[in-house]
């Protein structure tokens, strides 16, 4: 049992902190969030060329770095700290899907594209609150030339800029767990229409993606067409765990900047960090950050165990829902307390805590919030599955 990082991992994280300090200072995040892409493409290029982080999960056989989810999660945590807004998490989720279910040909084709710096994302649902196979409404219709996919997707991270979109679609007339398939779509294929939508959290660009009779070939089908509901559930669980790593970083940053401010601000002739009411609130914030850290690191280990088939889909589901429920609530609590403790300046545009507060709510509702994931844990618990 070893529940701490190796020296090599610590080195990777130190490097990550230094690099993100260069390309993701808050001034540049604020600048890039106003642009059409919603992130800085030159920073993404440097990330891919200098850091090679897009290759973390790609096996060495495919010329990748052959590292694991623990390294990935550690980097995402640091991105969350900085509110990094590039398409890293969504690309990593697609990479994980390919590593788990991709054929040999798919791996060599798509890993090569991802390593060259293309970005990827995942599109699943149109209606809110339905992050599951049941919520898939796009249809994959069999025609003479192959499958043609039509439907609308919302809440697609970086959907307006991604080069590759992993979409879920179902056979006409099917419902629930039946008839679901996963497909790798090129964003510039004929019939793909996408547009960025304005979002409350300006640091997390979302898009609507419309597919109009988009043709897919057999080599674009990931896993077993018509039978991919379990894979989709696992894909969403992976994506949720990656989000929790960003939440952890965001919560840590919110706590740090709040404590720094409290130490400086003087009222009644003393720094307000010396008031017990304030100290106790900060202690509660730290408790939630550290507890979140424990469950997020656990969930990272579970991804690695799952990738190598030692843990099954249930164990992944439990880990994802535990982490997503706790970390969502923790980040929102910490960022909300942060605004309160900043006082009046906390609600100004100028101070950064408001950006974290928005990020907390955005990442909480994305892929289901605390209540939804606790209900899922309750079902597993009462069924004796965890």
């Amino acid at each position, binding site marked *: 049992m070893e*529940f701490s990082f190796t020296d090599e991992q610590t080195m990777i994280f130190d490097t990550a902190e230094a690099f993100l300090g260069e390309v993701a200072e808050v001034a540049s995040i604020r600048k890039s969030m106003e642009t059409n892409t919603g992130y800085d493409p030159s920073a993404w290029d440097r990330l891919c060329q200098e850091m090679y982080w897009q290759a973390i999960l790609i096996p060495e056989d495919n010329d990748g770095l052959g590292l694991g989810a623990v390294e990935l999660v550690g980097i995402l945590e640091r991105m969350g700290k900085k509110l990094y807004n590039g398409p890293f998490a969504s690309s990593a989720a697609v990479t994980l899907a390919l590593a788990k279910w991709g054929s040999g040909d798919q791996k060599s084709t798509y890993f090569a594209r991802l390593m060259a710096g293309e970005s990827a994302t995942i599109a699943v649902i149109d209606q809110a609150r339905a992050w599951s196979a049941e919520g898939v409404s796009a249809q994959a219709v069999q025609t003479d030339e192959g499958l043609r996919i039509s439907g609308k997707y919302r809440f697609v991270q970086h959907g307006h800029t991604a080069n590759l979109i992993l979409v879920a679609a179902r056979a006409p007339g099917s419902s629930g767990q039946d008839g679901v398939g996963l497909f790798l779509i090129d964003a510039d294929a004929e019939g793909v229409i996408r547009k960025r939508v304005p979002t409350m959290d300006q640091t997390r660009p979302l898009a609507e993606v419309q597919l109009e009779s988009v043709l897919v070939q057999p080599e674009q089908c990931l896993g077993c067409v018509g039978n991919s509901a379990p894979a989709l559930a696992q894909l969403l669980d992976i994506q949720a765990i990656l989000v929790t790593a960003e939440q952890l970083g965001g919560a840590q940053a919110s706590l740090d900047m709040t404590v720094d401010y409290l130490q400086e601000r003087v009222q009644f002739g003393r720094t307000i960090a010396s008031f017990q009411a304030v100290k106790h609130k*900060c*202690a509660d914030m730290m408790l939630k950050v*550290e507890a979140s850290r424990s*469950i997020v690191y656990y969930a990272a280990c*579970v991804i690695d165990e799952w990738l190598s088939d030692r843990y099954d889909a249930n164990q992944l589901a439990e880990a994802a829902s535990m982490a997503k*429920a706790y970390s969502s609530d923790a980040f929102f609590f910490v960022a909300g307390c942060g605004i309160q403790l900043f006082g009046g300046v906390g609600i100004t545009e100028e101070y950064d805590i408001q950006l974290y507060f928005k990020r907390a709510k955005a990442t909480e509702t994305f892929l289901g919030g605390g209540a939804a994931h606790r*209900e899922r*844990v309750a079902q597993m618990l*009462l069924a004796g599955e965890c």
Partner: protein
Amino acid sequence: MKLSFSAEDEQFRNEVAEWMANNLCGEFEPIRFRGGPGDEHSFVEERKAWEQKLAEGGWTAIGWPKEFGGRGASIEQQVIFNEEYARAGGPGRVGHIGETLTGPTLIAFGSEAQKAKYLPGIRAGKELWCQGYSEPSAGSDLANVKTKAHFDDAQGKWVLNGQKVWTSLAHESEFCFVIARTDPASKGQKGLGFFLVKMDQPGVTIRPIPQLTGTSEFNEVFFDDAVCDADDIVGEPGDGWKVAMGLLGFERGVSTLGQQMLFQSELDEVVRIAKRNGAADDPAIRQRLADAHIGLRIMRYNSMRMMSGGEDGSLQKEAMIYKLYWSSWHRNLGKLAMDVLGPEAELLEGEPYELNRLQSLFLFTRADTIYGGTNQIQRNLIAERALGMPREPRGAN
């Protein structure tokens, strides 16, 4: 970062489990799962006999160095022992204060004579210890100790006068370690001594404190010219605070996973009842059951982080939140248990005030957030030591 133990450690796990299965049976069958927090008054004689059984098997003080009769077991092995002990239903350890506090304190700070005099009795499970820290005016403000000790030249002994409180197992213990003021003019952390005091003597009076549970785990202990030998002071007069606090930084929480096995069995019982009586159909209860499950799993990974941390004794963040985290979780579980039981929660097992396990849990967990540093003190410590916020101002006294 790995979730599994090594093959060697798993082998050790099997050894512990096998020994427990072969020995915690027969005459010891009735004490399985007994004597935990809130139940410490039960089966004391049988649990004392059990300590000696453990000692014969070489399962007391396993973390002590071999030269003092321990096994020099690694952190992982200590964790495994505590886990398997709890899983098998091992009873609450009456010897735990001697094993986890007195022993390590003497090994770190004691003289050779003190080690030779006291360690074998602890290791053999024959001599039990209690802790004489808190006093009526020294609760959260522990350094405000008023109990006095002076050296009496005529007798050639230390003489103690004063009162201790919240002393668990005082009436069952052979010895008590006591912090007392050796310099009458001193205040706070200075001028204290750390004494090893025999309980069976005319100058020591023990009075049990009846609690809200109807039981008396805690006692008051009065010292009226109680004595100990000249060489029963650990370190020098004035070193008492350093000795008393010295080991806290090295606490790696090896018993925490064992404690969590107990918590898990309590949660399992609550889930079982919720399924049986329909409480599990209530969405609000379902949320709280899931929350309890998630909270306990997080506690496990908090512990694993704590135990995997640096060996330098520096307090890490996960160690600093540990007490506040588990005590709050456990108190919430007690409340959830009552809400799952509904009106059944009111009905006792019998006269005069016989509580069932969950009722006892509900009432006794109110102590969890108080003893060993209240939640309020924990929050001060987290804010000051982990977050670097200013210290609480002291009153002029």
